[in-house]
Protein backbone atom coordinates (compact mmCIF):
# COMPACT_ATOMS: atom_id res chain seq x y z
CA UNK A 1 0.00 0.00 0.00
CA UNK A 2 1.79 3.05 -1.21
CA UNK A 3 -0.53 5.65 0.25
CA UNK A 4 -1.83 4.51 3.60
CA UNK A 5 -3.96 7.62 3.94
CA UNK A 6 -6.17 6.74 0.96
CA UNK A 7 -8.99 4.23 0.95
CA UNK A 8 -8.94 1.63 -1.79
CA UNK A 9 -12.10 0.86 -3.73
CA UNK A 10 -10.78 -1.89 -5.96
CA UNK A 11 -7.59 -3.88 -6.20
CA UNK A 12 -6.51 -6.06 -9.14
CA UNK A 13 -6.81 -9.85 -8.85
CA UNK A 14 -8.30 -9.64 -5.37
CA UNK A 15 -11.54 -11.32 -4.36
CA UNK A 16 -11.73 -10.09 -0.74
CA UNK A 17 -12.51 -6.51 0.39
CA UNK A 18 -9.81 -3.89 -0.12
CA UNK A 19 -8.62 -1.70 2.78
CA UNK A 20 -11.29 0.97 3.19
CA UNK A 21 -12.15 1.56 6.84
CA UNK A 22 -11.97 5.35 6.66
CA UNK A 23 -15.09 7.44 6.60
CA UNK A 24 -16.09 8.79 3.20
CA UNK A 25 -13.57 11.43 2.28
CA UNK A 26 -14.17 14.32 -0.04
CA UNK A 27 -15.66 11.99 -2.64
CA UNK A 28 -14.41 11.42 -6.14
CA UNK A 29 -12.00 13.88 -7.69
CA UNK A 30 -11.58 14.83 -11.33
CA UNK A 31 -9.23 16.65 -13.62
CA UNK A 32 -10.90 18.71 -16.30
CA UNK A 33 -8.99 19.49 -19.50
CA UNK A 34 -10.54 22.31 -21.48
CA UNK A 35 -9.24 21.74 -24.99
CA UNK A 36 -10.58 25.10 -26.15
CA UNK A 37 -8.16 26.81 -23.80
CA UNK A 38 -5.07 24.72 -24.52
CA UNK A 39 -2.30 26.46 -26.49
CA UNK A 40 -0.11 23.36 -26.84
CA UNK A 41 2.80 24.74 -24.84
CA UNK A 42 3.52 21.36 -23.23
CA UNK A 43 4.26 22.89 -19.85
CA UNK A 44 2.18 20.07 -18.39
CA UNK A 45 4.43 17.48 -20.06
CA UNK A 46 7.43 19.14 -18.47
CA UNK A 47 5.76 19.38 -15.07
CA UNK A 48 4.90 15.70 -15.25
CA UNK A 49 8.51 14.79 -16.06
CA UNK A 50 9.74 16.95 -13.27
CA UNK A 51 7.41 15.84 -10.51
CA UNK A 52 7.69 12.16 -11.41
CA UNK A 53 11.42 12.26 -12.19
CA UNK A 54 10.99 10.98 -15.72
CA UNK A 55 13.31 11.67 -18.65
CA UNK A 56 12.34 10.27 -22.02
CA UNK A 57 14.91 9.77 -24.75
CA UNK A 58 15.46 12.82 -26.87
CA UNK A 59 13.80 11.83 -30.13
CA UNK A 60 13.98 13.21 -33.64
CA UNK A 61 11.68 15.71 -35.30
CA UNK A 62 9.30 13.82 -37.54
CA UNK A 63 7.60 16.87 -38.98
CA UNK A 64 4.74 17.21 -36.51
CA UNK A 65 4.46 18.97 -33.18
CA UNK A 66 3.81 15.76 -31.26
CA UNK A 67 6.91 15.23 -29.18
CA UNK A 68 7.48 12.59 -28.00
CA UNK A 69 5.44 10.79 -30.65
CA UNK A 70 3.64 8.54 -28.23
CA UNK A 71 3.16 7.75 -24.58
CA UNK A 72 6.05 5.78 -23.12
CA UNK A 73 7.11 4.49 -19.72
CA UNK A 74 8.85 7.87 -19.35
CA UNK A 75 6.13 10.05 -20.89
CA UNK A 76 2.87 9.64 -19.05
CA UNK A 77 1.19 12.46 -20.88
CA UNK A 78 1.68 13.78 -24.43
CA UNK A 79 0.01 16.53 -26.38
CA UNK A 80 -1.57 15.26 -29.58
CA UNK A 81 -1.94 17.84 -32.31
CA UNK A 82 -4.67 17.42 -34.93
CA UNK A 83 -5.11 19.80 -37.84
CA UNK A 84 -8.70 19.42 -38.96
CA UNK A 85 -11.03 21.21 -41.30
CA UNK A 86 -14.25 20.83 -39.37
CA UNK A 87 -16.01 22.93 -42.00
CA UNK A 88 -14.77 23.76 -45.46
CA UNK A 89 -12.15 26.48 -45.30
CA UNK A 90 -12.06 26.62 -41.51
CA UNK A 91 -8.89 25.00 -40.23
CA UNK A 92 -8.75 24.20 -36.55
CA UNK A 93 -5.84 23.07 -34.48
CA UNK A 94 -7.13 20.68 -31.85
CA UNK A 95 -4.64 19.85 -29.15
CA UNK A 96 -5.48 17.03 -26.80
CA UNK A 97 -3.50 16.19 -23.70
CA UNK A 98 -3.47 12.40 -23.83
CA UNK A 99 -2.91 10.17 -20.82
CA UNK A 100 -4.76 7.90 -18.46
CA UNK A 101 -8.45 8.77 -18.13
CA UNK A 102 -8.78 7.21 -14.66
CA UNK A 103 -11.90 5.27 -15.61
CA UNK A 104 -14.50 4.56 -12.95
CA UNK A 105 -14.65 1.05 -14.47
CA UNK A 106 -11.00 0.53 -15.37
CA UNK A 107 -10.27 -2.14 -17.96
CA UNK A 108 -6.62 -2.27 -16.90
CA UNK A 109 -7.55 -3.23 -13.34
CA UNK A 110 -10.06 -5.79 -14.54
CA UNK A 111 -7.46 -7.49 -16.73
CA UNK A 112 -4.49 -7.44 -14.35
CA UNK A 113 -3.68 -10.91 -12.91
CA UNK A 114 -1.35 -9.72 -10.16
CA UNK A 115 -2.90 -8.89 -6.76
CA UNK A 116 -2.50 -5.20 -5.92
CA UNK A 117 -0.51 -4.24 -9.02
CA UNK A 118 -3.38 -1.90 -9.92
CA UNK A 119 -5.51 -0.16 -7.32
CA UNK A 120 -8.38 2.26 -7.56
CA UNK A 121 -8.63 4.68 -4.66
CA UNK A 122 -12.02 5.71 -3.42
CA UNK A 123 -11.29 9.18 -4.79
CA UNK A 124 -11.33 7.59 -8.25
CA UNK A 125 -7.61 7.61 -9.05
CA UNK A 126 -6.39 4.42 -10.73
CA UNK A 127 -2.80 3.77 -9.72
CA UNK A 128 -0.24 1.18 -10.80
CA UNK A 129 1.86 -0.19 -7.95
CA UNK A 130 4.88 -1.32 -9.89
CA UNK A 131 6.34 -3.36 -7.04
CA UNK A 132 3.51 -5.87 -7.58
CA UNK A 133 3.59 -5.74 -11.38
CA UNK A 134 4.77 -8.86 -13.16
CA UNK A 135 5.07 -7.29 -16.61
CA UNK A 136 2.50 -9.44 -18.37
CA UNK A 137 0.92 -6.59 -20.32
CA UNK A 138 -2.67 -7.65 -19.60
CA UNK A 139 -3.44 -4.04 -18.62
CA UNK A 140 -2.63 -3.00 -22.19
CA UNK A 141 -5.11 -5.58 -23.42
CA UNK A 142 -7.78 -4.30 -21.02
CA UNK A 143 -7.43 -0.53 -21.46
CA UNK A 144 -9.89 1.05 -23.93
CA UNK A 145 -7.64 4.12 -24.34
CA UNK A 146 -4.29 2.47 -25.14
CA UNK A 147 -2.52 4.01 -22.15
CA UNK A 148 -0.25 1.65 -20.15
CA UNK A 149 3.32 1.20 -21.34
CA UNK A 150 5.77 -1.46 -20.23
CA UNK A 151 9.27 -0.25 -19.50
CA UNK A 152 12.11 -1.90 -21.38
CA UNK A 153 14.28 -1.23 -18.36
CA UNK A 154 12.37 -3.12 -15.67
CA UNK A 155 9.41 -4.76 -17.47
CA UNK A 156 6.89 -2.96 -15.29
CA UNK A 157 3.83 -1.08 -16.51
CA UNK A 158 3.67 2.69 -16.07
CA UNK A 159 1.12 5.42 -16.69
CA UNK A 160 -0.22 8.69 -15.28
CA UNK A 161 -0.89 8.45 -11.55
CA UNK A 162 -3.04 11.61 -11.52
CA UNK A 163 -0.31 12.58 -9.04
CA UNK A 164 -1.91 10.35 -6.41
CA UNK A 165 1.03 11.20 -4.16
CA UNK A 166 0.22 14.91 -4.40
CA UNK A 167 -3.54 14.50 -4.25
CA UNK A 168 -3.14 12.27 -1.19
CA UNK A 169 -1.67 15.22 0.71
CA UNK A 170 -4.09 17.81 -0.61
CA UNK A 171 -2.17 19.19 -3.59
CA UNK A 172 -3.38 19.38 -7.15
CA UNK A 173 -1.62 17.34 -9.89
CA UNK A 174 1.61 18.86 -11.22
CA UNK A 175 0.18 19.50 -14.70
CA UNK A 176 -2.72 21.43 -13.21
CA UNK A 177 -0.43 23.56 -11.13
CA UNK A 178 1.71 24.49 -14.10
CA UNK A 179 -0.82 25.11 -16.89
CA UNK A 180 -0.43 28.80 -17.82
CA UNK A 181 -3.88 29.23 -19.41
CA UNK A 182 -5.95 27.44 -16.82
CA UNK A 183 -6.94 24.81 -19.37
CA UNK A 184 -6.43 22.09 -16.76
CA UNK A 185 -8.35 22.34 -13.53
CA UNK A 186 -8.75 19.92 -10.65
CA UNK A 187 -11.25 19.42 -7.88
CA UNK A 188 -14.16 17.26 -6.84
CA UNK A 189 -15.87 15.59 -9.75
CA UNK A 190 -19.13 17.40 -9.01
CA UNK A 191 -17.37 20.76 -9.08
CA UNK A 192 -15.55 19.91 -12.28
CA UNK A 193 -18.78 18.96 -14.03
CA UNK A 194 -20.26 22.25 -12.85
CA UNK A 195 -17.21 24.16 -14.08
CA UNK A 196 -17.44 22.38 -17.44
CA UNK A 197 -21.08 23.40 -17.81
CA UNK A 198 -20.07 27.04 -17.58
CA UNK A 199 -17.38 26.55 -20.19
CA UNK A 200 -19.78 24.73 -22.51
CA UNK A 201 -22.36 27.51 -22.27
CA UNK A 202 -19.64 29.99 -23.14
CA UNK A 203 -18.43 27.91 -26.11
CA UNK A 204 -21.97 27.53 -27.40
CA UNK A 205 -22.44 31.28 -27.27
CA UNK A 206 -19.29 31.60 -29.34
CA UNK A 207 -20.65 29.35 -32.10
CA UNK A 208 -19.51 25.91 -31.00
CA UNK A 209 -23.01 24.54 -30.89
CA UNK A 210 -21.84 20.96 -30.25
CA UNK A 211 -19.52 21.77 -27.37
CA UNK A 212 -19.79 19.05 -24.74
CA UNK A 213 -18.22 17.39 -21.75
CA UNK A 214 -16.39 14.12 -22.39
CA UNK A 215 -17.12 11.84 -19.43
CA UNK A 216 -17.85 8.58 -21.27
CA UNK A 217 -20.52 6.43 -19.65
CA UNK A 218 -19.24 3.23 -21.27
CA UNK A 219 -16.42 3.09 -18.73
CA UNK A 220 -18.61 4.37 -15.89
CA UNK A 221 -17.42 7.93 -16.41
CA UNK A 222 -13.83 9.08 -16.02
CA UNK A 223 -11.86 11.06 -13.48
CA UNK A 224 -10.07 12.90 -16.27
CA UNK A 225 -12.60 14.72 -18.43
CA UNK A 226 -12.39 16.93 -21.49
CA UNK A 227 -14.33 19.92 -22.63
CA UNK A 228 -14.58 19.40 -26.39
CA UNK A 229 -15.54 22.18 -28.81
CA UNK A 230 -16.84 19.44 -31.11
CA UNK A 231 -18.40 17.13 -28.57
CA UNK A 232 -20.30 15.27 -31.28
CA UNK A 233 -17.04 14.21 -32.96
CA UNK A 234 -14.48 13.17 -30.34
CA UNK A 235 -12.59 11.24 -33.05
CA UNK A 236 -11.38 14.57 -34.41
CA UNK A 237 -9.17 14.84 -31.36
CA UNK A 238 -6.47 12.33 -32.37
CA UNK A 239 -8.98 9.47 -32.38
CA UNK A 240 -10.46 9.93 -28.96
CA UNK A 241 -12.99 7.08 -28.90
CA UNK A 242 -16.60 8.19 -29.24
CA UNK A 243 -18.06 5.49 -27.05
CA UNK A 244 -15.25 3.73 -25.21
CA UNK A 245 -16.00 0.61 -23.22
CA UNK A 246 -14.17 -2.42 -21.98
CA UNK A 247 -13.96 -4.72 -25.00
CA UNK A 248 -16.54 -7.56 -24.87
CA UNK A 249 -13.59 -9.91 -25.42
CA UNK A 250 -11.95 -8.63 -22.24
CA UNK A 251 -15.23 -8.99 -20.35
CA UNK A 252 -15.57 -12.53 -21.66
CA UNK A 253 -11.99 -13.31 -20.69
CA UNK A 254 -12.25 -11.77 -17.23
CA UNK A 255 -15.95 -12.13 -16.42
CA UNK A 256 -17.83 -15.10 -15.03
CA UNK A 257 -16.12 -17.42 -17.49
CA UNK A 258 -12.99 -17.97 -15.44
CA UNK A 259 -14.59 -18.86 -12.11
CA UNK A 260 -16.86 -21.24 -14.06
CA UNK A 261 -13.91 -22.72 -15.95
CA UNK A 262 -11.97 -23.14 -12.71
CA UNK A 263 -14.97 -24.85 -11.17
CA UNK A 264 -15.10 -27.10 -14.25
CA UNK A 265 -11.52 -28.22 -13.67
CA UNK A 266 -12.23 -28.95 -10.03
CA UNK A 267 -15.37 -30.89 -10.92
CA UNK A 268 -13.45 -32.97 -13.48
CA UNK A 269 -11.02 -34.07 -10.76
CA UNK A 270 -13.89 -34.86 -8.37
CA UNK A 271 -15.77 -36.75 -11.07
CA UNK A 272 -12.69 -38.91 -11.65
CA UNK A 273 -12.28 -39.60 -7.94
CA UNK A 274 -15.93 -40.54 -7.45
CA UNK A 275 -15.94 -42.66 -10.57
CA UNK A 276 -13.02 -44.60 -9.13
CA UNK A 277 -14.71 -45.19 -5.78
CA UNK A 278 -18.05 -46.12 -7.36
CA UNK A 279 -17.49 -47.86 -10.71
CA UNK A 280 -13.99 -48.92 -9.65
CA UNK A 281 -10.86 -49.53 -11.66
CA UNK A 282 -10.91 -51.39 -14.94
CA UNK A 283 -9.05 -54.61 -14.33
CA UNK A 284 -8.35 -57.29 -16.88
CA UNK A 285 -10.44 -60.38 -16.13
CA UNK A 286 -8.64 -63.50 -14.98
CA UNK A 287 -9.81 -65.93 -17.64
CA UNK A 288 -8.39 -63.78 -20.41
CA UNK A 289 -4.93 -64.12 -18.95
CA UNK A 290 -4.85 -67.85 -19.59
CA UNK A 291 -6.53 -68.37 -22.93
Amino acid at each position, binding site marked *: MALQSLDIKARS*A*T*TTPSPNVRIEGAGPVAKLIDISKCIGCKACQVACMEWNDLRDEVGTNVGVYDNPRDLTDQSWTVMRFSEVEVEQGRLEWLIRKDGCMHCADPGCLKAC*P*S*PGAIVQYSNGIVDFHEE*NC*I*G*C*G*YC*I*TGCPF*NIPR*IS*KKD*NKAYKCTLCSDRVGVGLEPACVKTCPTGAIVFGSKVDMIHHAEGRITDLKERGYSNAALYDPKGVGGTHVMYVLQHGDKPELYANLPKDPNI*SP*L*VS*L*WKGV*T*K*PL*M*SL*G*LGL*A*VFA*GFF*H*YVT*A*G*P*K*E*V*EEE*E*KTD
Partner: protein
Amino acid sequence: MSKPIQRYTARERSNHWIVAIAFVLAGLSGLALFHPAFFFLTNLFGGGPWTRILHPFIGVVMFLFFMAMAARFWRLNHFTAADRQWMARIGDVIRNRDRGLPEIGKYNAGQKYLFWTMVVSIPLLLLSGIVVWQPWFAPYFPIWLLRIAVVVHALAAWIMILGIIVHVYAAIWVKGSVRAMTRGTVSEAWAKHHHRAWYREMTGK
Protein backbone atom coordinates in the same frame (compact mmCIF):
# COMPACT_ATOMS: atom_id res chain seq x y z
CA MET B 1 2.96 -65.65 -16.87
CA SER B 2 3.00 -64.71 -20.54
CA LYS B 3 5.60 -62.45 -22.05
CA PRO B 4 4.92 -58.72 -21.80
CA ILE B 5 4.27 -56.90 -25.07
CA GLN B 6 6.33 -53.87 -26.01
CA ARG B 7 4.07 -50.81 -26.38
CA TYR B 8 6.46 -47.88 -26.28
CA THR B 9 10.18 -47.64 -27.01
CA ALA B 10 12.54 -45.79 -24.68
CA ARG B 11 12.59 -42.86 -27.11
CA GLU B 12 8.80 -42.68 -27.22
CA ARG B 13 8.62 -42.81 -23.44
CA SER B 14 11.19 -40.07 -23.00
CA ASN B 15 9.38 -37.93 -25.53
CA HIS B 16 6.07 -38.48 -23.73
CA TRP B 17 7.49 -37.57 -20.33
CA ILE B 18 9.20 -34.43 -21.57
CA VAL B 19 5.85 -33.31 -22.97
CA ALA B 20 4.09 -34.32 -19.75
CA ILE B 21 6.50 -32.49 -17.44
CA ALA B 22 6.53 -29.39 -19.63
CA PHE B 23 2.74 -29.50 -19.84
CA VAL B 24 2.30 -29.65 -16.07
CA LEU B 25 4.75 -26.77 -15.57
CA ALA B 26 3.14 -24.70 -18.35
CA GLY B 27 -0.30 -25.49 -16.97
CA LEU B 28 0.57 -24.55 -13.37
CA SER B 29 2.37 -21.35 -14.36
CA GLY B 30 -0.45 -20.42 -16.74
CA LEU B 31 -3.18 -21.12 -14.19
CA ALA B 32 -1.33 -18.87 -11.75
CA LEU B 33 -2.27 -15.93 -13.96
CA PHE B 34 -5.63 -17.34 -14.99
CA HIS B 35 -7.57 -16.53 -11.84
CA PRO B 36 -6.63 -15.02 -8.46
CA ALA B 37 -7.53 -18.33 -6.79
CA PHE B 38 -4.48 -19.85 -8.45
CA PHE B 39 -2.07 -16.93 -8.01
CA PHE B 40 -0.33 -18.76 -5.15
CA LEU B 41 1.09 -21.09 -7.80
CA THR B 42 3.51 -18.31 -8.74
CA ASN B 43 5.40 -19.33 -5.58
CA LEU B 44 6.39 -22.55 -7.32
CA PHE B 45 8.17 -20.59 -10.00
CA GLY B 46 9.94 -17.95 -7.92
CA GLY B 47 7.25 -15.27 -7.82
CA GLY B 48 5.03 -13.40 -10.27
CA PRO B 49 7.64 -11.97 -12.65
CA TRP B 50 9.48 -15.31 -12.90
CA THR B 51 6.25 -17.12 -13.59
CA ARG B 52 5.49 -14.66 -16.38
CA ILE B 53 9.01 -15.02 -17.80
CA LEU B 54 9.26 -18.82 -17.61
CA HIS B 55 5.80 -19.82 -18.79
CA PRO B 56 6.17 -19.11 -22.52
CA PHE B 57 9.57 -20.81 -22.74
CA ILE B 58 8.19 -23.93 -21.06
CA GLY B 59 5.26 -23.73 -23.47
CA VAL B 60 7.54 -23.66 -26.48
CA VAL B 61 9.50 -26.69 -25.22
CA MET B 62 6.22 -28.50 -24.79
CA PHE B 63 5.09 -27.51 -28.26
CA LEU B 64 8.27 -28.78 -29.96
CA PHE B 65 8.29 -32.12 -28.18
CA PHE B 66 4.57 -32.53 -28.64
CA MET B 67 4.88 -32.05 -32.39
CA ALA B 68 7.62 -34.70 -32.49
CA MET B 69 5.35 -37.06 -30.57
CA ALA B 70 2.33 -36.25 -32.71
CA ALA B 71 4.30 -37.05 -35.86
CA ARG B 72 5.19 -40.46 -34.41
CA PHE B 73 1.60 -41.34 -33.49
CA TRP B 74 -0.25 -39.53 -36.30
CA ARG B 75 -1.03 -42.53 -38.44
CA LEU B 76 -2.22 -44.63 -35.52
CA ASN B 77 -4.89 -42.08 -34.66
CA HIS B 78 -7.06 -42.25 -37.76
CA PHE B 79 -10.63 -43.22 -36.92
CA THR B 80 -11.96 -46.58 -38.06
CA ALA B 81 -15.37 -48.22 -38.20
CA ALA B 82 -14.49 -50.18 -35.05
CA ASP B 83 -13.77 -46.89 -33.26
CA ARG B 84 -17.21 -45.62 -34.08
CA GLN B 85 -18.84 -48.77 -32.74
CA TRP B 86 -16.68 -48.53 -29.63
CA MET B 87 -17.66 -44.90 -29.12
CA ALA B 88 -21.36 -45.82 -29.42
CA ARG B 89 -20.82 -47.99 -26.35
CA ILE B 90 -18.84 -45.44 -24.33
CA GLY B 91 -21.45 -45.67 -21.54
CA ASP B 92 -20.66 -49.34 -21.07
CA VAL B 93 -16.93 -48.66 -21.17
CA ILE B 94 -17.31 -46.13 -18.36
CA ARG B 95 -19.34 -48.62 -16.31
CA ASN B 96 -16.66 -51.27 -16.84
CA ARG B 97 -19.02 -53.44 -18.91
CA ASP B 98 -16.47 -54.35 -21.53
CA ARG B 99 -17.91 -57.62 -22.81
CA GLY B 100 -18.51 -57.67 -26.55
CA LEU B 101 -16.76 -54.38 -27.32
CA PRO B 102 -15.42 -54.21 -30.88
CA GLU B 103 -11.78 -55.11 -31.44
CA ILE B 104 -9.76 -51.93 -31.64
CA GLY B 105 -6.22 -51.06 -32.60
CA LYS B 106 -3.42 -49.46 -30.62
CA TYR B 107 -5.67 -46.57 -29.58
CA ASN B 108 -9.34 -46.39 -28.71
CA ALA B 109 -11.68 -43.65 -29.85
CA GLY B 110 -11.32 -41.73 -26.58
CA GLN B 111 -7.55 -41.64 -26.95
CA LYS B 112 -7.93 -40.54 -30.55
CA TYR B 113 -10.25 -37.70 -29.64
CA LEU B 114 -7.72 -36.51 -27.10
CA PHE B 115 -4.97 -36.76 -29.68
CA TRP B 116 -6.79 -34.60 -32.22
CA THR B 117 -7.87 -32.11 -29.54
CA MET B 118 -4.20 -31.68 -28.67
CA VAL B 119 -3.16 -31.46 -32.31
CA VAL B 120 -5.54 -28.51 -32.70
CA SER B 121 -5.10 -26.87 -29.29
CA ILE B 122 -1.34 -26.90 -28.91
CA PRO B 123 -0.53 -24.97 -32.09
CA LEU B 124 -3.32 -22.55 -31.09
CA LEU B 125 -1.65 -22.13 -27.70
CA LEU B 126 1.65 -21.45 -29.41
CA LEU B 127 0.26 -18.89 -31.84
CA SER B 128 -1.90 -17.06 -29.31
CA GLY B 129 0.92 -17.30 -26.74
CA ILE B 130 3.39 -15.63 -29.07
CA VAL B 131 0.97 -12.78 -29.70
CA VAL B 132 0.74 -11.94 -25.97
CA TRP B 133 4.39 -12.70 -25.14
CA GLN B 134 5.92 -9.73 -23.30
CA PRO B 135 8.30 -8.12 -23.89
CA TRP B 136 9.45 -9.90 -27.04
CA PHE B 137 6.49 -10.12 -29.39
CA ALA B 138 3.37 -8.50 -27.93
CA PRO B 139 4.48 -4.91 -28.77
CA TYR B 140 4.41 -5.80 -32.46
CA PHE B 141 0.75 -6.80 -32.49
CA PRO B 142 -2.32 -4.53 -32.45
CA ILE B 143 -4.37 -4.48 -29.26
CA TRP B 144 -7.49 -5.97 -30.90
CA LEU B 145 -5.41 -9.04 -31.77
CA LEU B 146 -4.06 -9.26 -28.21
CA ARG B 147 -7.66 -9.34 -27.00
CA ILE B 148 -8.52 -12.23 -29.30
CA ALA B 149 -5.31 -14.05 -28.42
CA VAL B 150 -5.84 -13.96 -24.64
CA VAL B 151 -9.30 -15.45 -25.04
CA VAL B 152 -8.10 -18.13 -27.46
CA HIS B 153 -5.17 -18.95 -25.19
CA ALA B 154 -7.26 -19.22 -22.03
CA LEU B 155 -9.88 -21.32 -23.79
CA ALA B 156 -7.41 -23.67 -25.50
CA ALA B 157 -5.50 -24.07 -22.23
CA TRP B 158 -8.69 -24.91 -20.38
CA ILE B 159 -9.71 -27.52 -22.94
CA MET B 160 -6.22 -29.01 -22.80
CA ILE B 161 -6.12 -29.13 -19.01
CA LEU B 162 -9.55 -30.79 -18.91
CA GLY B 163 -8.39 -33.27 -21.53
CA ILE B 164 -5.28 -34.06 -19.55
CA ILE B 165 -7.25 -34.57 -16.35
CA VAL B 166 -9.30 -37.18 -18.22
CA HIS B 167 -6.12 -38.67 -19.73
CA VAL B 168 -4.37 -39.01 -16.37
CA TYR B 169 -7.47 -40.42 -14.75
CA ALA B 170 -7.90 -42.97 -17.54
CA ALA B 171 -4.33 -44.15 -16.95
CA ILE B 172 -5.07 -44.63 -13.25
CA TRP B 173 -8.47 -46.17 -13.86
CA VAL B 174 -7.42 -48.74 -16.46
CA LYS B 175 -5.08 -50.92 -14.45
CA GLY B 176 -1.88 -51.95 -16.17
CA SER B 177 -1.68 -48.84 -18.37
CA VAL B 178 0.87 -46.79 -16.48
CA ARG B 179 3.64 -49.33 -16.99
CA ALA B 180 3.26 -48.84 -20.75
CA MET B 181 4.72 -45.39 -20.26
CA THR B 182 7.07 -46.15 -17.38
CA ARG B 183 8.56 -49.46 -18.48
CA GLY B 184 7.35 -49.64 -22.04
CA THR B 185 5.45 -52.90 -21.82
CA VAL B 186 1.94 -54.13 -21.11
CA SER B 187 0.74 -57.60 -20.19
CA GLU B 188 -0.62 -59.84 -22.88
CA ALA B 189 -3.98 -59.92 -21.10
CA TRP B 190 -4.10 -56.12 -21.04
CA ALA B 191 -3.36 -55.86 -24.73
CA LYS B 192 -5.88 -58.53 -25.59
CA HIS B 193 -8.61 -57.01 -23.46
CA HIS B 194 -8.22 -53.36 -24.37
CA HIS B 195 -6.68 -53.31 -27.82
CA ARG B 196 -7.32 -56.69 -29.40
CA ALA B 197 -6.67 -55.69 -33.02
CA TRP B 198 -3.30 -54.30 -31.96
CA TYR B 199 -2.65 -57.43 -29.90
CA ARG B 200 -3.26 -59.60 -32.97
CA GLU B 201 -0.95 -57.42 -35.01
CA MET B 202 1.81 -57.67 -32.40
CA THR B 203 1.54 -61.38 -31.70
CA GLY B 204 0.08 -62.77 -34.89
CA LYS B 205 -2.57 -64.58 -32.78
